[in-house]
């Protein structure tokens, strides 16, 4: 019976705790500026991105990529890298990226 009960197991969603659990970069802050960017990211994900349909072509998403870039490359270089990613987020050159079979999105992780 235990095996059968797993067939239709649906758990109630708890959105607020999800963002911090889902995105590792949010929890990796070394100074106040990084905390500010993490806060902006959480706010964006919670109030703006949550109302959007799937529009980003990449995995990780542009916002997550920008957050990682700011944290690893500093504010100026990280933001420039984030803007560069936004200009590439258009699905016009899918042949240049590998496809993630799970999400069916183009893979473009941050490389230093």
């Amino acid at each position, binding site marked *: 019976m235990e095996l059968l*009960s797993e067939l239709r197991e649906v758990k109630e969603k708890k959105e607020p705790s999800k963002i911090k659990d889902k995105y590792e970069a949010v929890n990796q802050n070394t100074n106040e500026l990084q905390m500010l960017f993490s806060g902006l990211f959480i706010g964006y994900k919670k109030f703006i991105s949550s*109302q959007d349909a799937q529009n980003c072509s990449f995995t990780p998403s542009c916002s997550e990529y920008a957050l990682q870039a700011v944290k690893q490359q500093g504010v100026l270089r990280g933001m420039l890298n984030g803007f560069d990613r936004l200009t590439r987020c258009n699905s016009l050159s899918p042949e240049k990226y590998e496809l993630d079979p799970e999400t069916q999105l183009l893979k473009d992780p941050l490389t230093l």
Partner: protein
Amino acid sequence: MQKILFVLAISLFSSWSVFSQNVEETYQFAEEQLKLGNYNNSLLAFERAIFFEDHTSADTYTKLADVYFAAGNQERAIRFYDIAYFSENDPDLKNVIIFKKSLAYLQLENYDQALISLTSINSFQNKTVAQKKTFYKTLTYYLKGDFASYHEQLSQYTADQNIEGKDELLLHNKWEKKAAKIKPNLAMWMSVVLPGSGQILYGDWQNGLNSLALTTGLIALYINYIDQFSLIEAYLVVFPWFERYHKGGYLRAKENAEEKIDLYRSKAYQSLLKLHPAMLK
């Protein structure tokens, strides 16, 4: 010379003290391992015993299939339930095997095959078997999502068993009614007309108000652009953003309603399983 003597001594010693396990002991070991939850050991022991046995009984094949079932290898379990079924002569035991086989198909989410298996149940003169068959069919149709057939089977089952007032059934009916009341398309169209209302309709206040605030803000920005610049500029700059978040909102309203249905159906299903747990053994 010393080495030869040592080897001889060891060989003689081992021949005195070690005895091979016979088939009955191997079966006993297999069953002990099954009870302890050591499925791999149990499987190895059963297969070893079957290999050395002259004639394997249907009961042994059923036990082997049970171990595969418990270990999560349903394909192998079904294969051995089939062998057991054809080796068995007792019609009651044949029924038991079929019920187990249909449970294995349910685990594989192969609902049509589970229903096909249940047709082999011989329930002509056995009311209990007939009721069990109806219960299994009820579960299968529910999991399959064929709710018309499910309702038909459930009403037949409850009429036969006379369990109208049972708590689990009442709970099941409560969740079922809640699931039936939810209309994903209504939520979607409400959010098309008034953003956020579809989410609020089914209790998702946070996303509903969020969507309402976001789209209202974009409409205000749109009007501001018309006032400050021009209609064309407002259409080119703000409208794509409005369209994007408006569409996201109404699709999310539909998704939210569908998730709610899944949640209620899950609860209804759990109550259905608890209705007569003994039936699933």
